[in-house]
């Protein structure tokens, strides 16, 4: 049973073998990929991505989408950095202000998309643009000199792990528990598959995604604050620029469908790891800039291919199960 289970898990998460192969390849090529310093470095860099990718993934599973996270990140960084540098804000007040800023953006997005019912893509593209403008207007020049209290957020070690990694782990565990164990977890999927069916079943089809918008906004701002703390500086014009695409890529590469209703957090964590390792490895190997871009583009295509293969492989692996744990997805699209 265990062997067949493992095979199915592998089939379900083809990123696992890919990540292992990448790690082996990068280690062979450079001799310095596997090493606690490098791996911890990847984990720390990826932590902020994970912190935002997780609630974003829930949002996408529920059939919505938040593109504004790149700018909310900047706003959160600016809010925390401004309080820390201009007013000597303590860790707690800085984080609170940052979270408030993120919640505000999330509330606007959530209100427009869930309550009014506007298109999440256009609305959050709009707030992506507008919030960046606000952040730059508020803090046109770089903010620095944050003081020691705020430095703790990104720089502390907790049980030997960097604080961003610990925060990311907490976020993953909490979200994972909600998704797997609570009724709301089921509701998130149900809303994503059929908002109408969920509504008729008495599910709170506005409140649930609204809350996920709040969580995504708050997480993006927190990620910005963490990065500000790590760097000890914030540039409102560049902080988090393009972060929205990185987040969405991690979510989708991790096997969450943009159409909503499917995906797992474990997959998203793998997606984050995949991107972090790829970026790190390409730099380690010293691939020239433009070829790095080509390689990253191809990696996305490969990831799309894997996401496509996963249910098919899983169906194959399920051919001789003891008792099917989950029905395999339709292995056959309309045209094959």
């Amino acid at each position, binding site marked *: 049973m265990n062997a067949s289970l493992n095979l199915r898990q592998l089939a379900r998460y083809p990123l696992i073998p890919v990540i292992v192969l990448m790690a082996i390849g990068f280690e062979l090529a*450079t*001799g*310095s*990929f596997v*090493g606690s*310093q*490098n791996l911890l*470095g990847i984990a720390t*860099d990826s932590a902020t991505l994970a912190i935002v990718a997780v609630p974003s993934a829930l949002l996408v599973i529920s059939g919505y989408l938040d593109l504004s996270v790149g700018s909310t990140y900047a706003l959160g960084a600016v809010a925390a950095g401004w309080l820390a540098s201009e007013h000597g804000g303590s860790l707690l007040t800085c984080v609170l202000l940052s979270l408030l800023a993120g919640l505000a953006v999330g509330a606007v997005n959530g209100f427009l998309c869930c309550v009014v019912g506007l298109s999440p893509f256009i609305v959050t593209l709009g707030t992506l643009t507008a919030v960046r403008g606000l952040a*730059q207007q508020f803090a*046109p*020049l*770089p903010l*620095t*000199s944050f003081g020691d209290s705020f430095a703790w957020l990104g720089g502390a070690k907790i049980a030997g792990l960097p604080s961003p990694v610990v925060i990311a782990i907490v976020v993953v565990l909490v979200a994972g528990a909600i998704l797997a164990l609570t009724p709301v977890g089921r509701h998130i999927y149900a809303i994503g598959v059929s908002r109408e069916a969920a509504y008729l079943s008495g599910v709170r089809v506005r409140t649930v995604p609204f809350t996920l918008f709040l969580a995504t906004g708050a997480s993006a701002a927190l990620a910005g604050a963490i*990065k500000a703390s*790590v*760097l*000890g*500086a914030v*540039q409102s*014009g*560049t*902080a*988090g*620029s393009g972060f929205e695409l990185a987040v969405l890529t991690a979510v989708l590469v991790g096997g969450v469908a943009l159409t909503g209703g499917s995906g797992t957090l474990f997959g998203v964590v793998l997606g984050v790891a995949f991107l972090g390792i790829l*970026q*790190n490895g390409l*730099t*380690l190997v*010293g691939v*020239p*800039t*433009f070829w*790095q871009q080509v390689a990253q583009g191809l990696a996305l295509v490969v990831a799309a291919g894997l996401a496509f293969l996963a249910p098919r492989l899983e169906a194959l692996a399920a051919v001789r199960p003891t008792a099917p744990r989950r029905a395999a997805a339709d292995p056959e699209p309309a045209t094959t």
Partner: protein
Amino acid sequence: SAPSSTKASGDKVAKSSKDVDTIAWDYPFTFLPVYAGVAKFAKERAKEKGVSLEQTNDNGKPDVQASNLDTLIAKKVPAIVSFPMVFEALETQAAKALSAGIIWVTYGGTLKNQSASITFSFEEGGRKLGEDAAAWANQTLGGKGKVAFLVDDTIQLGIERTKGMIDAFTKAAPDMQVVGREQAIDPDTALTKTKAILAKHPDVNVILGITDGAAFGGYKALVESGRSETDAKTYVGGQDGDLGSLELIKKGTFYRASAALQLRDIGNAVIDVPLAVADGKSDAEASTDVPITLVKQGDALLDEIIAQYG
């Protein structure tokens, strides 16, 4: 002293600086911190001179830049100061502006069609940084050590700075081993990339950044990896003259130099040069070259620029 409305500004050719009530400053890289710095001084100067300063929102896109310039020309603003993302690409706009009687000042370089220019050589800024770092490496490391460059290959000014920086360094310190050449203009990206470089080469001595933002990220990565902030065998340097970097230089850390733009001089020039043109000055008379200076610890200029940020 408030300028008359933009509406009244059109339709006439400026015969003197009194006719110039509006200057449109078109700067495409508004996400860079330098922009905000220069803008601060340009606005102050504009106020002094009683003109209104308008800015565009090109967002780093060359076609949006061209569109916005077309709009400004159609609107007949009396003067345009434009920083072309791709220089040749704006010859048409410059010519159109001139023939509409609009003063055209090229920023950051020169065009065939222009009233005047405000220049500061990007290549030179990079070169000065590269030479200084190479001299330091030769002196401190005996010319043997490891260097990583944080570069920009995407925009023209970045390409020039990169070339100046790398060519100067590798020429003057040919035995230094180049262990990284990564695209990074902001601290976030630079931190990640430098960390990866350090995983393979924990003993990198020199990190040179295309911007101070990038160098700042590189600096952080070194510190995070355990390097003492005053390590004698480490050199980090950047370009632009961002406040955070200048403060590190002042503190005596291994962030040792920045090829600093003099924001106040440039900001003033954005207003002064077009006004000089309006007063009948020729291209040669009106144009200004703002030198890029490498600032290091102990330089008087260092304190001056820090003070400018106020």
